[in-house]
Structures are given as C-alpha cells and as structure tokens.
C-alpha cells in the first residue's frame, strides 16, 4: 500500500512540473513589460525598474526563474508576491474560503440531490419518477454551465426574487444559486450513474441472496444494492471536486463572487503573473492529491481492489 502511494506520488511529479512549467511560461511570456505597465504614465527611474526586475528574478533565464519560484513554493510555501508587493499567499488566503464554501455547497447539493434522484430512478425503474429523472438528467447534462448559471440567475434571482442575483453580501443564502449552477451537471451525472449501477445491482445474484435471506426490501436495497452502487458514485464525486475548480471561474464571475476563480480571472486580465502561477500551482497540487485520495478511497470501499 505505502509502496503504491509512493509510486503514485512519483508518477505525479512530472505532471506537476510540466503543468506548472507551461503555465509559468505562458504567463511570463505575456506581451508587454509588466514593470512598464506597473509604472503607468510616469516613467519609473531605471534603477528602480532594475531593482524590481532583480526582485522577481526577471533577469534570470526562464528556467532558472521557474526553478527559483517552485523552490520557494515547496520549501517555504512562498507563492511569490504581486508587483504591488502583496504576497500571493495573502490573496489566496483571502479568496480561498469563499470558493471552498461555494464548492462545499455544490458538493453537498450534488451529493444529496443526485443520490436521491438516482435511487428513486433506479428503484422505480420505468415508472413515472424514473422517466422524470431520466428526462431531466438528459437535459441538464446537455446544457453548458454558462447557460444553467444565467438561467438560474434570471429565473430565481431576477424574476422570482427568491435568491440574491449576485454578490455574497447576504451571507450563505447567496451561495445557493451559484452552487446549484456549479453542481447541476454533476448532479445529473451522479443520478444517471447511480441509476444504472443500482439497476444492475438489483438484478445481481447477491441482491437475490439478500432477498432470500428474508430481509426487508429497504434493507435489501440500502445495505446490499446501494452499498455497491455507491462506490463509483463516491469516486466520481471525489474526482469531480478537482474539475469543479475550473467551473468556479465561470460561476464566480457570473454571480460576482469574490473567490479564487474570480481572482484568477482578474489576475489573468491584469497580467498578474505571479498570482496566476500561484493559484494554478495550488490547483494542480489539489488535483494530484485529490486523485490519489480517490484511488485510496476506492480501495477502502471495494475490498476487491488491492494496490500492491
């Protein structure tokens, strides 16, 4: 097991390096000189420009710059500073909780709604509720998050006025619409996946055994059918958390939420290279760790899987 974890971690080292390297290169190859842009209309004295260049290692060859940066990240948790002198870590610390709240809401939403819909659909196969779930999941999966987000904003925010249209001034209730938008597609995918898994499980021999043991229908479904059907769903949800981070960029900018996604978007536009690289590095690490955890979780949930 430990060996497996180590192997997996080693496997992810090149991925992490390359992903961050590419992003680093793209960001710092941006057209225009960020220092000149920083100084605005009034030209900065040459000495000062040189000092800043030195501070950000801009005079080093590209690969050295990158290496210095990553060294800082991994040895001191130093994600660099913006050209205004604000530590990137500071920005991350300020925006991350908002995004995590949003992601947590979405995660809970898709878990609850997706699983309930999947169970109803699978247990009452071919009945009305199943048809309803099937039709709605087909539609939701086929819609882009962008359209879903606007639709929710227009209908429930603007038209019905049930939720705030944008911003997070009204506290947790402000997160509901964005979270639904963020989690909608995954909710539908969970429902579908669970439905087919459950239908398959309910026809399996071991569920027949459970019935033959004289268990109540609820226990047959819950303890025997569902226990097995949930394994792929749980691993999907885990892996999906990483994907969700990409979705926050859109959702946060539509609902004007001051989170990590919105931040990275603003930083890209403002050519704040260090912030972009910092956040991307964080996201890549998040992805790598999450995937490893999902694999380990899979082994815990399904005793037939052994990593050695």
């Amino acid at each position, binding site marked *: 097991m430990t060996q497996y974890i180590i192997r997996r971690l080693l496997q*992810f080292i*090149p*991925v*992490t390096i*390359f*992903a961050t390297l*590419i*992003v680093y290169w*793209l*960001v710092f*190859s*941006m*057209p225009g000189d960020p220092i000149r842009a920083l100084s605005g209309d009034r030209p900065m004295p040459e000495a000062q420009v040189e000092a800043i260049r030195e501070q950000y290692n801009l005079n080093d060859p590209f690969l050295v710059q990158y290496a210095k940066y990553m060294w800082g990240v991994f040895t001191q948790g130093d994600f660099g500073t913006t050209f205004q002198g604000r530590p990137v870590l500071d920005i991350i610390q300020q925006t991350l909780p908002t995004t995590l709240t949003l992601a947590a809401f979405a995660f809970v939403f898709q878990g609850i709604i997706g699983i309930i819909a999947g169970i109803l659909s699978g247990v009452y196969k071919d009945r009305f509720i199943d048809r309803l779930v099937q039709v709605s999941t*087909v*539609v939701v*999966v*086929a*819609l*882009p*998050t*962008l*359209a879903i987000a*606007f*639709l929710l*904003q*227009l209908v429930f925010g*603007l038209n019905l006025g049930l939720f705030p*249209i*944008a911003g997070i001034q009204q506290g947790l209730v402000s997160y509901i619409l964005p979270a639904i938008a963020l989690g909608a597609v995954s909710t539908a995918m969970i429902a*579908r*996946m669970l439905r*087919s898994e459950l239908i*398959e499980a309910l026809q399996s021999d071991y569920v027949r055994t459970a019935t033959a043991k004289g268990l109540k229908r609820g226990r047959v479904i819950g303890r025997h059918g569902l226990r097995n059907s949930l394994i792929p769903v749980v691993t999907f949800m885990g892996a999906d958390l*990483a*994907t969700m*981070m*990409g*979705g926050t*960029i*859109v959702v946060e*900018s*539509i609902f004007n939420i001051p989170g990590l996604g919105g931040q*990275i*978007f603003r930083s*890209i*536009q403002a050519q704040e290279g260090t912030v*972009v690289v910092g956040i*991307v590095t964080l*996201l*890549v690490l998040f*992805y*790598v760790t999450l995937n490893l955890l999902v694999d380990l979780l899979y082994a815990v949930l399904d005793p037939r899987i052994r990593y050695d």
Partner: protein
Amino acid sequence: MTELNKVDASATVTNEPAKKTEDASLWADAWRSLRRNPWFITSAVLLLILITMALFPQLFTDQDPRHCPLDRSRQEPSAEHWFGTDIQGCDYYSRVIYGARNSIAIGLIVAFSCLGIAIVMGLVAGYFRGWVDAVLGRLTDLVFAIPYILGALVFLNVIETRGVREVAFVLVIFGWPTMTRLMRGSVLSVTGQEYVLAAKALGAKNINIMRRHILPNALGPVVGYTAIYTGIVIGAEATLTFLGVGLQLPAISWGIQLNQAQGYITQLPHLLVFPMIFVGLTVFSFMIMGEALRDAIDPKSKKR
C-alpha cells in the same frame, strides 16, 4: 514470401464480403434505433435549423446586424425587433441569428480536428503501444491536471488578436487528449479480437490491419463522442468569450453578447435571455445528438 502474400490476399478477399454485411447491419441497426428515438429526432431538427442559421443567416432575417443607429438603442422586444435592440441600437434578433456561425464553426472545427488527431494517435498508441502510448498517457495526465477552462484562459490571454482560428487552435490543444484516450481504448479492445490476431498471424501488413479491421470497428464509440464534443466546445467557446478571452469585437458572437448584457441584467434582461437560449439550445442539440448516436452504435455504452 510470395506464398505468404498470396495467403494474405486471399484471406482479405474472402474476408471482405463478410465484413461489409456486418458493417451494413451494424449501421442499419443503429439507424433503426435512431429513427425511433425522440431525442434524436428533436436534436436532428434543431441542428438542421441551427446549421442553416449558421450557413444562411439571411434566410432568417433581412435586417443587417451591423446597422446600429444609436437612436433606437435599448428597446424592448417588439413586432419590429423581435428580440429588441442592444445598447448600440443594433437589431438584437439578427445579431443573435448571425452569432450562430462563429459558435458552430468553432465547435465543428475543433471537434473534427480532435477527431483527426485522435484517430491517428489513438491507432498508433492502441495498436503499437510502446513509447507513443506511454507519452500519450503522461500528456493526458498533464492536460487533465489543468482544468480545461483554466488552461485555455491562460493560453488565450497571451494571444492578442483572437479570431475563430486562434480560439479553435487553443481549444484543440486542450481538447485532443480526451478523445485520443477514448480512441486508444477502443482500438485496444478491437486489437485483442480474434480476427485481428488471425490477420496478424496470416502476415497482413500493419497498415492494412489498421485500415481494414481496426479502424472501422474502433470508430463507433468515437463518432458519437465527436458530436458530444462539438457541444462541449461550443459551450467552452461561449464561456471563454464571455470571460473576455475568446472572440473579440467586431465579431458577432453569443459569448460577447452575454458579456455585454451581464451589466444590464436588471434593466435589460432580454439582452441576456436570447443569447443564453441560443447557446443552450445549440450545445443541447449537439450533445443530445451525440448521446443518441453513441447509444445507437454501441448500446452497451448506455450505462454511463
């Protein structure tokens, strides 16, 4: 050697007719199940309309989307301007209609470019395995590690003038591994089949085995996904353009319309509603079409 070649030739000759009928019945089966699938009918009709819209927008409106007199700006929908007018006073209906072209063009270009790459790379990786497969595996890991939108965002931001070509290019870069991985898996499963082993044992050339035996049988799952992927790309393009890193003015695009309308959501919601509906419908149609195709060609895939 000549002996072997003869054997090979006769083997392929006798194989051919059998193969043809099998293929024919596969596609005939697929067509039969498609015809009865209401989702397929719906999406086919919608796509027909949307693609006509992209090719011949003039059929749908006689207004010029670029005629924008400021004195008629910010009008609500009316008989004259079905979708109202935008901030600049352009007829919004014609702008939304003309927006179909860029979206669908990018969707199709990207999806088919990815399909082309996937076929070649997937065949090579799945058939020969070896280092190509290993490199492909790592590359896919790499692309998955960076969220699609984020990668495209960073990349596109570097490009100063972005037209259909630039946006499509970036989307292909981040898109091809997914489809290639699918194709590779499909090739891998076909390569293990006995008729492929038989052809190999008879000394058929690799290129012929790939062309005659593997490609036709491995393509099924990828075809459906190409349509699904077109939908995904259109959604991604609209999203990126909405975020301001996709197409740029003066291009007519749903993403730009959404971007500009966002600030007026409370005053002029119709500016948001119409492009939203069209983006939604277009993505929806392609994805539904793709799912219907996938289910028809490979009924087992219905699971997921």
